């Protein structure tokens, strides 16, 4: 891992840490209050705040995971150079598309 990827992975971890705690708090809150799916969607749809928070979380998680998978692949497989770059970008794209699709589903009306 180069210093550039190292900084990117640490920075995304720093972004994720508070957002994941918030995410867990939301889960505990929703389950303890017995909120239904309709209740939750009623609060999240059209919310710029929830949409922004989870968009940032998805982008940070996708970047962080793609770099981690790149490191594992470089150590445990013969992948190098362009193949390793392609795998990294493919992981990033897949995770971000899946994540943003989920965010859109709960935020967009």
């Amino acid at each position, binding site marked *: 891992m180069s*210093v550039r990827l*190292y900084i990117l992975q640490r920075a995304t971890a720093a972004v994720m840490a508070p957002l994941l705690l918030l995410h867990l708090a939301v889960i505990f809150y929703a389950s303890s209050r017995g909120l239904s799916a309709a209740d939750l969607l009623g609060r999240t749809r059209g919310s710029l705040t929830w949409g922004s928070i989870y968009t940032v979380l998805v982008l940070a998680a996708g970047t962080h995971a793609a770099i981690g998978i790149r490191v594992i692949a470089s*150590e445990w497989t013969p992948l190098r150079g362009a193949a390793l770059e392609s795998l990294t970008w493919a992981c990033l794209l897949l995770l971000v598309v899946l994540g943003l699709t989920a965010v859109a589903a709960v935020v967009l009306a």
Partner: protein
Amino acid sequence: MAEIAVSLWRGKADGRYQVYRVPQRDNQTVLDVVTWVQRYADPTLSYRFACRVGMCGSCAMTVNGRPRWTCRTHTAKVVVAGKLEIGPLANLPIIKDLACDLRPFFEKWQQAKAVFAPRLTREDAIERIIPTSAARLAVDAAIECINCAVCYAACDTVRWNADYLGPAALNRAWTLVNDVRDTGNRQRLTAVAGAGGCHACHSHQSCQQHCPNALNPTASIAGLKRRSMQAYLRGELE
């Protein structure tokens, strides 16, 4: 007389362990055992040693699965149920029997720019170094490396990543980063900030666990991570 059943690696990478029965003695080191086999059982056994007192770093081998300096490892400490297994160091090509090719190890010292780049010449006065300065204390903590390659053989990242510079080269680079007489930090920090550099370390701390001189290369590598990151953010890397 009590004997030890010693399994010694014979041959190259495709070799095998061969058992020798060696007399067990008081105050006997693992290096004594290997030497006994060569002198009295099989003179074709190849191994490497020099000083026999823990200074030169030549005699490191794998003892019961762990890398150790054999001249300072007593058999009383490592013989289990009358048995001992001695092999060549891991993560290095085997030349023959217990002797490894250390060229990859030392070539990575060069790649890490772990070489002193002086500012003064022999014509200049000797520079005064304050022993209690933070930089000198950081050097002192890491300077006693004897180049034995035990840390290199113990390192998981070296095993997984052929490009990784390894704990010893990075530890040496860290001593030079903190040497106020040195001028090579721009090139050095650039060298250790690349793909096989300090950021590839997973901090498993096997180097620290196995270093016979109780050094902590993991801490040195952590220092390099911080210092090279700062240099990158300031745009100081090449």
